């Protein structure tokens, strides 16, 4: 990954460090320590590690929701959080809750407006993302009636609505059923094929192994190991991940059940 011009990297974390104040005391808790990672366009990076290992903090720093205490965080050469960087980013927070009084379509319309999508393209794009999320019929329904999985799919839809160059997904498979997870896997590979960079955090190691071009395992805020699955596991990523036998049976039954 070395030798590229800086602006070619979709994501650059250079010695990134972040601590949090522990309540009112002067003590601080180190969330991420001296993390250096780079990701090119068209690649998928999976952040793995136990709870509290710094995955969400890293994603939030890339999204501009928090500032690095040490080091640099760059998105296509722009400091993360700057207006230029945020214009290139789509972000799915962990377990989002959206305004219950809006319909799915209205919420996406609001997001599209904030991302300055042109009005004539907005409606087509909203339909496209609703279609992808399997939410086309639920589009006119109020979000208060959505299930957890539907909210998660809507969260994914708003993250890719404005066609961002960098997609950041915090636990994207959380709350999704097996069909939703397979659709998510396909979406991530499709986005990467379109040249977008994707960074996601996950506890699902099999999913990460199938999808990622780069893996980074964090522990207590430190980078334990990073590299491609081939480097780390001695085998290349599976290009077209097949559903497991149980998943196949489940999908069959769901299909026959309508």
């Amino acid at each position, binding site marked *: 990954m070395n030798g590229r011009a800086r602006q070619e990297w979709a994501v650059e974390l250079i010695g990134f460090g972040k601590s949090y104040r522990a309540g009112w005391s002067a003590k601080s808790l180190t969330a991420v320590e001296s993390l250096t990672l780079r990701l090119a366009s068209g690649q998928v990076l999976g952040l793995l590690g136990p709870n509290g290992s710094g995955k969400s903090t890293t994603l*939030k720093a890339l*999204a*501009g*929701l*928090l*500032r690095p205490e040490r080091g640099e965080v760059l998105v296509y050469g722009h400091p993360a959080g700057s*207006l*230029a960087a*945020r*214009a290139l*980013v*789509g*972000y799915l*927070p*962990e*377990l*989002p*809750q*959206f*305004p219950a*009084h*809006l319909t799915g379509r209205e919420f996406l319309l*609001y*997001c599209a*407006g*904030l*991302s*300055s*999508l*042109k009005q004539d*393209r907005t409606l087509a794009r909203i339909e496209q993302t609703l279609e992808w999320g399997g939410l086309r019929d639920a589009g006119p329904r109020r979000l208060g009636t959505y299930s957890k999985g539907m909210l998660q799919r809507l*969260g994914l839809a*708003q*993250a890719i609505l*404005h*066609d*961002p*160059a960098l997609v*950041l997904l915090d636990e994207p498979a959380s709350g999704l059923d097996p069909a939703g997870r397979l659709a998510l896997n396909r979406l991530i590979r499709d986005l990467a094929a379109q040249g977008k960079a994707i960074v996601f955090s996950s506890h699902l190691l099999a999913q990460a192994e199938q999808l990622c071009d780069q893996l980074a395992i964090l522990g207590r805020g430190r980078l334990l190991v990073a590299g491609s699955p081939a480097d780390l596991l001695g085998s290349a990523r599976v290009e077209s991940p097949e559903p497991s036998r149980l998943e196949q049976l489940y999908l069959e039954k769901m299909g026959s059940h309508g």
Partner: protein
Amino acid sequence: MAEFPHGGPSASFRRTRLVALHTLGEALRLRLTALLGMIGAAVVVGALALREFNFGSAELKFIGDFGLGAIGGFGTLLAALATAQLFFSEIQGRAAYCVLTRPVRRWEYMAGKFIGVAGLLALFTVAMGLLIAALLAVRAAQLEGAVVGWTALACACAMQWLKVTLVAGMTLVVCSYAGSALFASGAGLILAVVAHLRSFVGEGGRFGWIKVWPNLALFDAESVLAATHPPSASLLLGCAGYWAVYALVFIGIASYVFEQREF
């Protein structure tokens, strides 16, 4: 990819308007809004039952004063509680993350929140003002020779709106650094009380510094209604200017503090 430039005043205006409309839409669906609106309306109508206890004032003035007091009181409650609730519902549900990771400046978000709540308070004030006007019209028709100062009533309602929107501004400042809606609304109400009592602070002394805080007694709507003539244009402009300065200061402080905030 987004097609419009993200910088520039027109883009800022568009995003602020979107956040404001979204906030207003959410505010209108709050149970709190319906509850305070209904109680406020009941209190205004209750003035008819209490008019025997008007301590010698003219009946129409009593109804007007009582109604304007209800707008001020319930408007203050609505301003503090709705501002805090609308702000924290988005932060705690992480929906705000989906907004703040887009090319939306923090001041645009805060200004949008303020304008949205100001819109809610405008609707509240207009609805209550119309109810007071209806009561006054009915009683004026029943009482011989009674005259209602409609212009004065409209000005008094406008003054009440200026007052309660400043309470929303104060609460927004607290929201920008507070950790919970309960704390923010409580602190917003305390700051509103301080702003009401500020006119009693004498020159100099230990509490002289409180004079930097806005004086909400300047928007005394009852005195506007009591006057025989509608307030002069210079008085109204003076109050509007005073309001505008403090509204901008509150939005500025809230935006600056919120800019430093991490999630």
